[in-house]
Structures are given as structure tokens and as C-alpha cells.
């Protein structure tokens, strides 16, 4: 059964057709990779899923509910969390605060006026956040200010923030960019584990083919705003259309 259904979505910036009749169907429990050259429209597609952009036409449904025109915070509340291509974190706050905020949002909803509660009384939220930080290997840095992290660490922090919400759909925009090989492998292992253990549904945009082929159940290839192929990873490698449009075969 498909959790996310994108139907004939178009989006233009001025004269540039960033998304051209896009269709995408993400099955519940699957890891769906989107690959394609720079400027193919991958991030734009994710922007249309989380309410950052509104498509010019077409439909996006999540668990049977239309996401068109729904506010970003509502889309998150119904179970969609995203790791961005350029990290979006709370830079002036500590890592633990960074993870507790999404966790509180998940528990308390879009707004809660509770100045009479104390953060140090939120033991459950704190423990949960610590275990999420431990999962991405940042537990010992929990009291550090997020802005001082390296780019790869910021991305891992953002992943921990998303995981703390236990999302129905996890969107990852180049989750391993800027990471050392060691951390990339570690992140792949983590994503694989949550995919297998919790059956986490994910959409992963990735340039690193090693990551794509070790994680994905399905691969969608985009170029110039359109979908070229959608198939299982093992069939993608040999597909001549992909080789031509995407890489000239170099990386595959």
C-alpha cells in the first residue's frame, strides 16, 4: 500500500520547469531513493511535499490526505519529517535542546503554553533525546552549541531531530553529504537498521551510489524536472536511459 502518492505535479520558477509532470508512489515500509544530476528538481520535489512550495498543479496525498496548501507545521504533525540539504538546526542551542524541541512538538502539538512546567522535569523527553543522539553518535556532545558542529555532524544532528519524532515518513535530502567515509558508513548502518527494525518509510535523495544501492528498495531517476525511470536498484544499474541522462555511466 502506498503511503505517499504524487500525481502529475508541476512546478515552474519563471520560465524554468523545475518539476515536469512528476509521478511518485512511495510504499509503506520501503526505502525509496531519488537520484539525478544537479538541478534535476529533487529538492524542489521534497519542498512540494512538506509545504515549503505549493505545486502549480497536480496532487500530493499522504495516507489518503491531500497535502496541497497544508501548512508545514501541520504536515509535520501528521508524520512527515525532513533532513534538509543545507542543515536546518537551532544553531544557538545545545544539541540536547535541538533534539528535545522536535520531541516536545511531537508530544504537545503545534503550540502549548506551559511556563509552569520545568524542562528538568521532562526526564522522559530528555532520555529519549539522549538515546536519539546516541543513535547518531553524538551523545557525548549533547551539551555543545549546535553551530560549532562540523557539517557532517550537523546533518547527523538533524537526523536525530527527525528520528525523535518517530515520523511515518522520513525525507532525507543528501543525508551523507559532507561526511567522512567512516560517518557515511555509520549513517547507512543506522538508516538500514531503522528501516529493518521499525519498517521506517523513507525517501532518500543521494548522490553517493554506494549509499543508494546499499539502502534502497526502489529508485527513481530524475533529470531536468522529469522522471526518467523508476525501478528496483538492480535494474537501474544497467538501464541505458539512466546511463545516458545521468552520468554517462561513469559512477555506476
Amino acid at each position, binding site marked *: 500500500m502506498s503511503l505517499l502518492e504524487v500525481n502529475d505535479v508541476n512546478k515552474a520558477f519563471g520560465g524554468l520547469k523545475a518539476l515536469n509532470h512528476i509521478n511518485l508512489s512511495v510504499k509503506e515500509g520501503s526505502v525509496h531513493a531519488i537520484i539525478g544530476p544537479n538541478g534535476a528538481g529533487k529538492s524542489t520535489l521534497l519542498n512540494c511535499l512538506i509545504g515549503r512550495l505549493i505545486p502549480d498543479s497536480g496532487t500530493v496525498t499522504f495516507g489518503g490526505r491531500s497535502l496541497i496548501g497544508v501548512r*508545514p507545521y501541520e504536515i509535520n504533525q501528521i508524520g512527515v519529517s525532513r533532513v534538509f540539504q543545507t542543515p536546518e*538546526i537551532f*544553531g*544557538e542551542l545545545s544539541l540536547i535542546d535541538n533534539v528535545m*524541541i522536535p520531541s516536545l512538538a511531537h508530544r504537545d502539538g*503545534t503550540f502549548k*503554553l506551559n*511556563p509552569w512546567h520545568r524542562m528538568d522535569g521532562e526526564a522522559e523527553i530528555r532520555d529519549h533525546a539522549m538515546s536519539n543522539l546516541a543513535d547518531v553518535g553524538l551523545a557525548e556532545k549533547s551539551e555543545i552549541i549546535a553551530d560549532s558542529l562540523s557539517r557532517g555532524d550537523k546533518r547527523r544532528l538533524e537526523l536525530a531531530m527527525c528520528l525523535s519524532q518517530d515520523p511515518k515518513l522520513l525525507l532525507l535530502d543528501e543525508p551523507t553529504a559532507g561526511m567522512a567515509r567512516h560517518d557515511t558508513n555509520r549513517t547507512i548502518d543506522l538508516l538500514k537498521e531503522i528501516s529493518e527494525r521499525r519498517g521506517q518509510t523513507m525517501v532518500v535523495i543521494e548522490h553517493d551510489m554506494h549509499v543508494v544501492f546499499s539502502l534502497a528498495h526502489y529508485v527513481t531517476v530524475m533529470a531536468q524536472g522529469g522522471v526518467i525511470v523508476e525501478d528496483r536498484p538492480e535494474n537501474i544499474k544497467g538501464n541505458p536511459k539512466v546511463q545516458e541522462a545521468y552520468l554517462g555511466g561513469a559512477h555506476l
Partner: protein
Amino acid sequence: MMNFLDKDNLQSDIVLIVIFTIAILTMPIWLQPFGAAYPDLMQKFAIFGIFATGFNILFGLTGYLSFGHAAFLGVGSYTAVWSFKLLGMNPLPALVLAVIAAGIFALAIGYLSLRRTGIYFSILTLAFAQMSYNLAYSVLTPITNGETGLRVLRSDPRIFDGNGSETGPLVANLFGIEMTGLSGFYFCAVVLILVSWFAIMIFRSPFGLMLKAVKTNQNRMGYTGLNTRPYALAAFIISGMYAGLAGALMCITDPLAGAERMQWTASGEVVLMTILGGAGTLMGPMLGAGLIKYFENIFSSFNESTLESVFHFLPEGMREAAISVAGLFVGEGWHLTLGLMFMIVVIFLPGGIIEGLRRLAKAVFGRKRADDTPQRGGDTAPTGH
């Protein structure tokens, strides 16, 4: 000693509030060597401490810089005087009504102004405050009594005041205690302690954490499932209520409200107090308020003859020169001194006086905690934007 300011568990907060309470209540004693132990001046410290503490909840936590908070001060004052006029001289209903009125006013102005961020937000708040100021002088004169100012008259109904009060003095009166002199100060001091305690609670709460998130990254907040607007609006209303409370307290000893209280200079002053003390820190804004009011009191009271005695030791010609230069910075020219102080702090101590104290404490107590380089909170200077 400053270390407890960096921790945020319940015990250290209780220690903080106990020390703070003692410090406030003993002001008449320890301010004596500074020549600042007059009830009048101490009452001012408390009132502006409340104003700045509230302002800090908005500016320090969410980063929204309002240039119109004096409007809420004015609303608080007018409401309090009306409460005296209609209900009687008891300050408690006056405070409650002032807080409610300022809150409603803040809801309206905040709702409109918070549609924009950054400099546009600041300009909007400034515009609304100037509008309120002008309205108070023009169409609203039936309520504000225009340029003369609103005051309590013998002929006012004051329905809950007993018969005997008709000939008594027209100052606020808390169940028989007149709000003048030390009792006026202590009343304001108790209010200050209560609302500071509430401010600490906000800082330590999940709600306070969300306000810090508003300052840091509103985009991320949205994609994290949080609606930023009501958080910012709630902070705006709470800080407006603090301002209204301060405005009402300004009327307890001298029940008079004038529109000049809403002028933009008054809005600017609370910004200076907050930044000078340390925006986003718990005690900084109050410290800034106290220091500015203290120096205002000293410098603005200087005149020719006091300067003459200060520079008495200099030889003839130099004395005149020194007096004429120093004369620029005192009396009417005290704002020049304030401007200099402000520049020095902003340039050399962007975290404000609290940041300075922290550095001092670190230098004195050395590196006891070797691992304390990039700890949470304290060590990053709050960036004011």
C-alpha cells in the same frame, strides 16, 4: 559565585531567587554607601527592573526587538489612574486592571506587528507606539486628559474608598498603608520579586525553550511541527503585561499619567537597559535598568557648582576647561554619557554586563572546570537580532 547562573536545576534556581529576594529587600541598607538609598530612586529601580525583565522575555528569548513597549507602559498608567478614580485608591485592582488592559493592547499590536520580522517588525511597533502617543494627545483626550495628564481628583467617585478618605492624601493606599516612602518601595519590590520568579519559570520551561527556538530558526520550527506565530505572540503579550504592570506602579505614589510616558525615547530606554545588562540573561536586564537609573540620577543632578568642587584640585586655567568639557556630559547632557556607556558595552562586551561578570568570575576562579569551554547557554554571547 556566578557559576550558579549557568546551571538550570531547581536547586540553583531556588538559591538564585532567595539571594535575589534578600538583595532586593535589603536595598535600603546596601545602597547607602552609593548614595542611592532614597525610596524614590529605589522604587524606580524596581519599576524599571520589572519593565526590562518583561522586555527581555520578548527580546532576549525570541529575538523580536520591539521599539514600542512604552505604549504598554502608558496604557498601564492610564488604566491604573482610572482604577483609582473610579474604584478607589487600593493599588491591587489598579495593577490587575492595568495588566489586563496592557495585555489586550499587546494582543492587538502584536497580532499585527508579528506578521513581519526583523527591522520591519521593529518599525511597526514603533509606529503603533507613536500612534498611541499622538492619539493620547488628540482624540483620546476624554480618556487621557491630553497634555495636562490624568490625575485623581477629590470629586472622583472612588466607590470602594470609605467616607473618611475624602480628606486624606491622594496616594495609593493598600489596606491602610500609604504607598509613599519606604512602603511604596517595598510594595514595588515585592511585585518585582514575584514577576522575576515568573520570568525564571518561563526561562526554564518547555515554553521558554520554544521561545529560544523562535529566535534561532523559525524555518526549522515550522518543519518540526511548531506554529511559531502564537509563541511569538504569547511572548509579546506577556512582555506587554510586564510593561503595563510597571506603568501602573509608576502611579501608586504619584497618581498621575501623562502621554510622555509613551514617547519613543521611553521605548528606546528599555532596549538600552536590556542590552546593557545582557539580553537573554536572567538578571542582566534588571541590572541594566538599575545602572541606567542610578547613573541618570547622579549625572543629571550634577551642575556647575558640583563640577567646580570635583575639579577643585586643578590649576586655574585647566579647571575651567575641565568643567566645560565635563559639563557636556552631566545635567541635561546626561544622555551623552548614556550613549558613551552604551557604545562601550556594545563594542567591547556584546553580551552585556552579565557577560563581563562571567568573564571576571572565570578569570578569578580560574579553570576549575577544565571542560567548560563550549558549554550551554552562558558562554555564547546572545546575538541581538
